């Protein structure tokens, strides 16, 4: 293993060692996605029972929306909270004086984000299949692209949150839990972008999530794979990830100038 990979693994091992011994921590990862799936799954079942066929298709879109949104949410929280764990344990000083490069730190946090998301979302996907006969994999190969795009969106939002924590310290911590809920209304999770007022539609279309959900509904409702939306999601993710990386690099440097790495979290 190269020295860089070993440093990345070292930081991931620090988090994995915690989860290995703590079943409540593991349970917490799956708790909210499963709860969400229960609520929206039963809602979809109720509507299907009362209205019939059209509601069944809408119910599938609803559950697909819930699951893919959870991918973004868990990816974002997985990265942000893994960073916060270092602050809470007052360990950042040791980490930042080790040879771990900032980009390796981010890659380790992304690795943890992926694992936390997978552990959290997999039971909800299984539940949707067992309880509501909704098979997310019926979306076909496009699902892989949907998944990747939603994860990447979670990562750049999280990098923005980490940058704000570096800039503003503990005062910015609540963003790690709440920031994505602020983007949800514009992400077209449960309704098409066209439902939004005209002045809000450009905001929605600047978010990769809106294109992913439009693409998902295209497959579920019309049986069409919308490559235009997929390409737009990929392009926007590249742009936003680049911008978030620059912001992180700048805030990390500024934190070193201000001495914030010595006192962050206090």
């Amino acid at each position: 293993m190269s020295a860089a990979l070993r440093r990345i693994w070292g930081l991931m091992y620090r988090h994995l060692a915690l989860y290995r011994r703590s079943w409540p921590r593991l349970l917490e990862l799956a708790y909210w996605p499963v709860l969400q799936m229960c609520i929206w799954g039963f809602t979809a079942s109720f509507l299907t029972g009362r209205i019939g066929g059209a509601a069944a298709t809408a119910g599938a879109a609803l559950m697909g929306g819930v699951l893919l949104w959870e991918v973004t949410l868990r990816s974002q929280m997985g990265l942000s909270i893994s960073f916060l764990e270092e602050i809470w344990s007052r360990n950042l000083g040791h980490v930042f004086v080790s040879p771990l490069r900032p980009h390796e730190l981010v890659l380790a946090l992304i690795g943890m984000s992926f694992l936390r998301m997978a552990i959290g979302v997999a039971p909800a996907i299984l539940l949707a299949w067992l309880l509501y006969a909704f098979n997310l994999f019926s979306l076909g190969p496009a699902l892989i692209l949907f998944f990747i795009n939603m994860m990447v969106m979670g990562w750049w939002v999280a990098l923005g949150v980490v940058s704000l924590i570096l800039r503003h310290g503990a005062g910015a911590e609540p963003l790690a839990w709440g920031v994505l809920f602020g983007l949800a209304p514009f992400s077209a999770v449960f309704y098409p972008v066209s439902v939004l007022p005209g002045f809000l539609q450009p905001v929605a279309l600047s978010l990769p999530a809106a294109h992913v959900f439009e693409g998902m509904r295209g497959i579920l409702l019309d049986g069409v794979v919308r490559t235009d939306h997929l390409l737009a999601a990929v392009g926007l993710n590249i742009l936003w990830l680049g911008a978030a990386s620059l912001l992180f690099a700048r805030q990390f440097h500024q934190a070193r100038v201000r001495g914030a790495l010595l006192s962050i979290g206090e």
Partner: protein
Amino acid sequence: MDVIAVNSLTKRYDAVLAVDGISFAAPAGATIGLLGGNGAGKTTTIAMMLGLLVPTAGTIRILGHDMARDRFAALARMNFSSPYIALPHRLTVAENLRVYGHLYNVHGLEQRIAELAAELDLGALLDRPAGQLSAGQKTRVALAKSLINRPEVLLLDEPTASLDPDTGDLVRTWLERYRTQTGCTILLASHNMAEVERLCTDVLMLKQGRIVDRGSPAELLVRYGQANLEEVFLDIARDRKQGVLV
């Protein structure tokens, strides 16, 4: 060649001048003591040497590497210990040492952990969470972490704070042995004057961000006409005598 070369190092936070153009150097095997009251600039100096803080002006070269441009090459060969920066308290001692062994790319890591456990009497603590240790045990674990990569430069911020006299002596003896065996260069910030007298080959007296005096412990005692470094420290801190560099 000097292992540590600090030149005109300055750190300013808006109107506050935390470190004011200090310069010093340390050859291989030296132990430099940083002495000064609270707010004298010791921690700021160490933070700049570790790359945690960007200097306003001046240069730092460690092991031949310019810390402004090439700090990671130097950081791999250095380490740091401070009782004021914690290790993850839910991880066991062994897990903590493994984390840092990976971060420093230590080969033969399990063997290195076993060596350190034997030398610092940590064997019985390896499977205990770091958060359940006493202050003295935590300090020994922090020291083990700082030695995991066999550093050539070791920066220590009050390494024996919270230790009882017996354990403090054990740690000091261990540091002396490590320095003798490896030729490690040590920078030590401490308020324990007896420790500084025992370990340091050279002492920098800091006040308000400036080096106000320097010399070996023996030279300082003669210069100030005192029997111990604590009295020298008080002479400088209370302006009873001025350092020769003021």
